[in-house]
């Protein structure tokens, strides 16, 4: 008879094993230690353990050292590392998110992030606003924005608005612009109003998978109450969650980003674009539209349809776009990240926009207008640079 040995897998072992889930997780074993991930990471230079080194730590069984360092919170889930990894390892989704998850479990969470997560938990939105006021942005505006409810049970399009687009004063402008365009195109749509909750994607990539699942379930409940053809959103994070992650929870609805939706209706839209928008425009590819979902052409097609618009590209564009710094919890780690880096990627980005010769920086994600507008204020050479969501530029061109 053999005596059974009780093996006690170390934290290192269990963590490593937890990454290796199919279909792509097991690729972590094939890391070449080439360092391309660490090199391309916007904050790799301040991380004690950028992705590649994290894998090296796993291999030499010293992952506890990674857990003792707080620099994992510098990850803004921008997918730059995932994009370049020659072994195709899902670094952003698996390695980085799992490491943050462990930090959250052990309570090592920066206070500002903690607050944001608590807000999401308590109010269903990260800004800590009253859920009842979710549709307040529609009040007193010209455009009509129907809300699903007793009177309206079905529509062609369910517009998923999202936290920032509902509550943030700067981003509300974008929402109003989108409403105007939907009206002008005669689209049959409705929003969920107070039935809507945050999409949870950034919380997930900040390591709060549980919270993400709760929010997803709440949204699923709301979606299932009404009849609609598809979901459209102005928020690439929500788009990513509903398109790629909700289905893994059994929540499957067709979803598109508004740039796809409008690019399809370009012929209908073009005659409405009458006012020239002068000056050069450069487009910042949001990480969750570009690298995470490979949508690069549609927003550019919309911009090019604007009379007078001249599109120029920044040094980092398309697949190499530089993160605004807001993803994966970055939105709620402003202070922490400033402490570590004393610089912000949004400032680098604004400098690139100036170097491209553009006077307008076009964006397509609700995180971006506030971030870039802040950066415009701090970068001296940038004064006068306009930050506009693509939809806002379309509306400017539509106005009489």
């Amino acid at each position, binding site marked *: 008879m053999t005596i059974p040995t009780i093996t006690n897998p170390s934290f290192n072992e269990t963590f490593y094993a937890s990454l290796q889930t199919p279909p792509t997780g097991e690729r972590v074993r094939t890391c*070449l230690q080439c360092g391309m*991930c660490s090199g391309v990471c916007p904050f790799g230079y301040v991380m004690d353990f950028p992705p590649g080194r994290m894998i090296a730590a796993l291999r030499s069984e010293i992952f506890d050292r990674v857990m003792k360092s707080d620099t994992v919170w510098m990850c803004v889930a921008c997918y730059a590392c995932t994009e370049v990894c020659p072994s195709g390892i899902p670094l952003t989704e698996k390695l980085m998110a799992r490491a943050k998850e462990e930090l959250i479990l052990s309570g090592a969470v920066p206070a500002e992030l903690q607050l944001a997560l608590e807000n999401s938990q308590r109010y269903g939105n990260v800004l800590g606003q009253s859920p009842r006021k979710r549709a307040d942005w529609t009040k007193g505006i010209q455009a009509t924005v129907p809300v699903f409810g007793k009177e309206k049970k079905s529509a062609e399009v369910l517009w998923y608005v999202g936290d920032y687009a509902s509550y943030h004063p700067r981003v509300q402008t974008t929402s109003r612009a989108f409403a105007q365009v939907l009206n002008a195109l005669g689209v049959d749509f409705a929003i969920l109003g107070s039935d809507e909750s945050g999409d949870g994607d950034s919380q997930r990539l900040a390591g709060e998978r549980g919270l993400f699942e709760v929010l997803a379930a709440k949204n699923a409940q709301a979606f299932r109450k009404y009849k609609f053809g598809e979901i459209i959103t102005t928020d690439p994070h929500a788009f990513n969650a509903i398109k790629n992650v909700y289905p893994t929870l059994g929540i499957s609805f067709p979803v598109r980003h508004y740039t796809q939706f409008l690019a399809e209706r370009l012929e209908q839209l073009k005659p409405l674009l009458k006012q020239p928008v002068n000056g050069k425009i450069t487009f910042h590819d949001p990480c969750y539209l570009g690298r995470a979902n490979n949508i690069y052409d549609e927003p550019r097609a919309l911009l090019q349809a604007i009379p007078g618009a001249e599109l120029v590209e920044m040094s980092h564009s398309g697949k190499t776009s530089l993160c605004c710094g807001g993803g994966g919890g970055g939105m709620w780690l402003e202070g922490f990240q400033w402490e570590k880096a004393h610089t912000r990627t949004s400032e*680098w980005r604004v400098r690139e926009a100036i170097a491209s010769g553009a006077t307008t920086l076009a964006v397509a994600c609700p995180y971006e207008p506030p971030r870039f507008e802040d950066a415009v204020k701090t970068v001296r050479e940038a004064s006068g640079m306009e930050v506009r969501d693509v939809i806002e530029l379309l509306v400017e061109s539509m106005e009489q």
Partner: protein
Amino acid sequence: MGEKIGVYVCHCGSNIAGVVDVAGVAKWAEENLPNVRVARDYKFMCSSLGQEMIEKDIKDLGLTRVVVAACSPHLHEATFRNACKRAGLNPYLFEMVSIREQVSWVTKDKAIATEKAKALIAGGVKRVVYHQPLEPLFVDINPNVLVVGGGIAGIQAALEIADQGSHVYLVEREPSIGGHMAQFDKTFPTLDCAACILTPKMFTAGNHPNITLLTWSEVEKVDGFIGNFTVQIRQKARKVTAEKCTGCGVCEEKCPKKVIDTVFEAGMGTRKAIYTPFPQAVPKYPVIDVENCIYYQRGTCKACEKFCPTGAIDFDQKDEMMTVQVGNVILATGYELFDARRIPQYGYGRLANVVTNLEFERLSNTAGPTNGKIVLRDGVTAPQTVGIIHCVGSRDIKYNVDCSAICCMQSLKFAHLVKEKTGAKVYNFYIDIRTPGKTYDEFYRRILDEGVHFVRGKVAEVTDAPRFPGEEGKLIIQVEDTLAGRQLRVPVDMVVLSAAMQPRVDSKQVGQKFGISCSANGWFIERHPKLDPVATMTEGIFIAGVCQGPKDIPATVSQGAAAAARVLGLIGRKQVTLEPVRASINADQCSGCRICNNLCPFNAITFIEDRAVSDINPALCQGCGTCVSACPAGAITGSHFTNQQIMAQIEGVLLNFGNGHEPAEKLEQVPA
């Protein structure tokens, strides 16, 4: 039936015996399977002792059939057939059962593996009873050889064969032979000039009495089989009559139309609309590039014709088709370079001073567009700092998973050339330095000694967006120095991308034309990766050089010579034996429906009008079985794959099911 069958179960060291209970299987076969006279297991059946064991049993026990359960027929069917033959048994009365590839290598569970081995062996035993003695077919070998691709691999192969007295048709798609090597400046590790060692070979190939050089040509169609291929070749119209042209070059000089040369000069230089790609080109006759020629675009010009002293220009020349008969074919179609634009992080195509390795070769070449001066795109400024990036498009599952095999050595060569010619500071960025081979590591040490900076890390990006003082106006290389564990930003003036060698875009189509296959990534597949690297699964078709996989010039030349040796061996035999596994039509049963006629991929079936039946030419038939299964009258039989044989084999495989032998619940667990 009264057959006496010998069953031999191989251990293959521990390859099979580690998983299958070989002794148990042999014992079971002897006790349970019909007609089995003897069953044995042995450590290595393919060894001479193993083979002798079979031969002895045939003689002593009067075996009439033999079954060997071992590796795959691919590897050792011929070995055991020969053993049977030596002992006086017709080799086709033998059956091989694969219990390594199909059992022990793919099944971990010992009990299941053992049961599966039994089932397969039972199939073999049941089948072999119905085997019929067959006699091999003999065909003559046409001593002419076709070589496709005139790079160093094709040139080497052609010369070896031609020197032995056989005739070679050397088909090259470009206007000149030479391939990539002709574009290079120096070659590692000895740094001798590429042209100096290549040109004499090109010249010899171009003037060899036994070589018909067909440049600006492509193979259109191939019919036939080993020994007797019929090949149709398209000779594209050069618009220059070879017999009249003296290669004086006046036409080129007078031609008013300049074109950027994207092939030979890799976009770094220009040529004319009428051109020879480089001064030492073989043959020396130019071609007119009709897409760019002013006469073909606008109907006037003809400057070349006016100045040509021998009247060699012929604007009406048409493509010509020629048909040649050859016995063997060597494919040496080489590679192309990875398109570095696919990695936008490196800025190639957007940032002027990011160049590829091939562009660098042209820059560094004294016969190149800058006369060998290494300068920036402005054509005058010498770089003060140069970054060389290894592994561009190789070792990456998104592009080419393999190592390019030469890019480390080539990058080291570049580092040396930059230092020698410009005195610039040079950085090499690498994942791993791979310098296997005679004197290669010595070369690495030499470059280290020369003071080149080595940074271990795959470059993350090359950008023109400055972030820190001192970066303005430079190309900034951002990289994690994985040894020091820190991120670096290195400002440089020029970046050289060591782009991967990758299969030709048309490699799959070319392979299909010659009936050979490509690996998933597009390299031609050799018959055996270790033991038969230049043969293919199609008899009479050989491969050499980089078309088989990334390699350097010495390895390419070795393969060219090896392929030639294989072909010369066959020519020397004058005849080859072909597998007698062929289809035949029973004329009495054939209804003359002609369904099979067009199905045969080898055009082996003809219709005999007066008797209104179809008939198969056994020399052309490859025994693929397509017609056998298609014939609605069941008139076609594939020898060695008769219905009876196949049904008996299936019956044998299923023998054990449902009679209590098998661990049924276990078998059901095997995933589909």
